[in-house]
């Protein structure tokens, strides 16, 4: 980038970004910024606008409104139409489908962007060897994309994007086509590469484990909005909305709707917490983490009647899933316990809640406590 980055300059600053497709508004109004070297992960359910945002960052689509600036320079603007072409952005995009050019060898794929950028032959060859080495695929140099495996194709795609040394790296679900084992391997590989290159990265995924392990910053998106933005630990510790609370964390936390009855907040006739937590509201949602739910009655603690559905081992403990309430709008609850419960699917069990709710949300979703 032309201008020298100062401390104050964000690597990426998005302000009031809007994207419409005809009548449909994919992104109504989105603002966020990350410092140089950040690893920003965009998570959210399918269709929430992650790819749309990434494509605008890449310069493949124009925004309908708002602005995107890289290192203090406006690259996309919905109002003025200032759109720097991909070359001036100095950004690279790794596609979910790899998008390797099938008529070029691995070396050809990596070299073509350099050729377009006007590198001379020697520099090109040297750089090709360098990134091939970085990704550990030097042996594949002269193969065609059809002659290598999916995981290797992914590495080549990353190598191709890294080769011109972009200041900003964009990834659109780069690992979703790989099997679970390879995915974990590539995850740490990507983090190693991020450390090695120091490029600011934006990474789209709907795998929240990926988000939590890789990110320096996470933006949880829903319906084209950023529900919450911050470091992963903060998002886990203090979810700002019910959406974030239930989207993140393994297993997901539990939300219990509760009504005020006198001095208590009740769920299904069971008093759970003091009414003061509701701050004057008549109905709220109480958030309990899986660790706060146990099985079997315990003195002085609220007990919920539930129906056992399944259990699965998880990191030395057992994750138990049960449903509470009538069949129509049954509530799925997850608990983390020490031992496998002595129950079969369909059996009635007692769930015990320990401690105060971890968070209290209004019925509309925002956090109040």
């Amino acid at each position, binding site marked *: 980038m032309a201008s020298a980055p100062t401390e104050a300059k964000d690597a990426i600053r998005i302000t009031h970004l809007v994207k419409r497709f005809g009548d449909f508004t994919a992104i109504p109004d989105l603002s966020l910024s990350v410092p140089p070297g950040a690893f920003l992960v965009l998570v959210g359910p399918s269709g929430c606008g992650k790819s749309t945002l990434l494509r605008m960052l890449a310069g493949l689509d124009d925004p309908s409104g708002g602005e995107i600036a890289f290192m203090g320079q406006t690259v996309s603007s919905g109002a003025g139409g200032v759109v720097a072409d991909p070359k*001036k952005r100095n950004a690279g995009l790794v596609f979910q*489908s790899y*998008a390797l050019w099938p008529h070029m060898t691995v070396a050809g794929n990596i070299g*073509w962007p350099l050729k377009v950028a006007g590198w001379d032959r020697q520099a090109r060859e040297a750089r090709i060897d360098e990134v091939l080495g970085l990704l550990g695929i030097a042996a594949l140099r002269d193969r065609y994309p059809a002659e290598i495996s999916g995981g290797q194709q992914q590495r080549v795609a990353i190598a191709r994007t890294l080769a011109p040394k972009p200041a900003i790296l964009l990834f659109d679900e780069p690992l979703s086509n790989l099997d679970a084992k390879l995915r974990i391997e590539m995850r740490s590989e990507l983090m190693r590469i991020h450390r090695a290159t120091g490029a600011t990265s934006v990474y789209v995924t709907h795998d929240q484990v990926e988000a939590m392990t890789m990110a320096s910053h996470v933006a949880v998106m829903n319906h084209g909005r950023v529900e919450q933005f911050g470091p992963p630990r903060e998002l886990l510790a203090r979810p700002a909305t019910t959406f974030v609370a239930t989207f993140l964390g393994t297993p997901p936390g539990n939300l219990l709707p509760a009504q005020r009855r006198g001095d208590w907040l009740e769920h299904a006739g069971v008093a759970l917490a003091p009414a003061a937590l509701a701050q004057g509201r008549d109905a709220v949602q109480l958030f309990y983490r899986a660790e706060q739910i146990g099985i079997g009655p315990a003195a002085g603690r609220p007990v919920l009647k539930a129906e056992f559905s399944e259990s699965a081992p998880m990191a030395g403990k057992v994750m138990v899933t049960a449903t509470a309430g009538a069949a129509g709008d049954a509530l799925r609850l997850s608990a983390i316990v020490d031992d496998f419960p002595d129950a079969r699917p369909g059996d009635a069990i007692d769930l015990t809640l320990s401690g105060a709710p971890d968070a209290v949300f209004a019925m509309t979703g925002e956090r109040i406590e």
Partner: protein
Amino acid sequence: MSLPSTAAPPGRRLFTARRLPALLMILIVGILVVAPLLRIVLATLTPGGLEAWQAVLASPMSPNLWWRPLLNTLILGIGVSAGCLLLGGFTAWLVVMTDVPGRRLLGVMHTLPFMIPSFAAALAWGTLFRNSRMGGSSGFFESNGFLIPDWLAWGIVPVLIVLIAHYYSLAFTIIGAALSSVGADLVEAAQMTGARRPRIFFGIVLPVVTPALVSAGSLTLAGAVANFAAPALLGLPVRMQTLSTRLFGMIEIGQAERGFVLALLLIAVSGVFLFLSDRLVSGRRAFVTVTGKGGRTRRFPLGKWRWPLCALGFGLAGLTTVVPVLVLVASSLAPQTGALFSNWTLHFWLGEGGGQIAQGTAGIFRNPVLIGALVNTLKLGVTVALISMVLGLALAHTITRNKGTVLANVLSQLAFLPLLIPSIAFAAAYIALFGAPLGPLPSLYGTFTLLVMAAAAHNLPYAVQAGRSVLGQIATDLEESARLTGAGPLRRMWAIVFPLAIRGLLAGAILVFVKMVRDLSLVVLLFSATSPVLSMVAYRYAAEGFMQFANAITVLILVICLAASLIAQALQARVQKWKE
């Protein structure tokens, strides 16, 4: 046909009962495909044959017999192939890669010209552009006071135009399929590098579709080289000869050996190009696009070119589909070619003979020769379709049963051989083998049987393909699932296998039927004067200058083909619905 000695290591095992059907199939294919080809080669190695080689290749006659026809054939082949790549490439790009309005309809319309037989297009051309030089009535334009120069009325230029109009839709289909496999991601990945549009086009898009371009080029070239109808109708009147018309002429005048030599040369010419193109796109670079998602294609906005290019696309489609059909229909109704759209009469269809129009000839539905030809055509189409499908199914079954063995390989190679042989040369080979008494067999020349055999053999590749897909369909989970429901084998046969197979087979049979009904180049050598088929009668009428009758018969052929295709489509749709 002798098998390579490595066929089955212990020689005796070749003749076990299990292999018997396979050997029988080899025998049948041997007689139908290999024997005629061997025979035509042998026929040119007799003293008379060697003389023919000399006459054709190295004698004062050879410029007329070989070099000039070769030159014309090559000009046609290369010109048509280039024209088809341009037109087909342009239309494919327009439909697949841009935001041109009406893309769907355009896409359908550009596949139609290939359905219209090339002699229909040639007849339509003649109806519009004939000039009076050859005698007979002049065409629409000249009757209306436009002077049509000879080069536009006859010879290589109109043949080129007609063949390009016919074959470009084949190129369109092939290139279009390739372009739509160039996912948006491939293009966007190139955009991300900062490359400009032309560079992306020449660096990425073009190379990725190159294999498709090569095969489109070679297939249209082979088609043009082998085509008989267009050069015969538009070239022969001015003595423009191609290899196929030359070969037809030689056999017509009884110079069979020279005809055979020309047939072999024609096979060689088209074979060389097919071989070269195969070389070009095979090997490591025979890539398939490896993108996972695909599907989404990047559409380039055309901006202010949207509407002009849309008009161009529709104009082209109209000129190659609507106009020829319209001209043929109108001409079959109009008493004068100069006034295609006035005084319409059904005379050429239904009129009684002896009147003023058409020199007293009766309308086609009152003409016993024609009714006979119609019956013959349908009989030929149905017989060939049935025989081909039975053979195709049997072959496909044998090939899958013996999968991986040398037998199966030999069989499938042989079954696909006719695809490489221009049909008029194939017909010549049949004449070489069956044209004279063969041992106890009488000469089959001019008989319906010979025509059916040759046609069935020439359609074998399609039939085997159809048979394979039918078998594949049955073999997959459908039958398995029926077995799991506990149905017995007979029940399974009746409830699952039969309905599925019958539809697939019918669809394949209809394809063969349509190909037969509109075929000219195979029947033109093998038909018998006493029981002609429709395309042949149309050809003769056209050659004698009775354009309206020729056109009316061609319209009849188009209607039959259209009806059959509609039935096939309905069947296909039902099969599809059924599979869901």
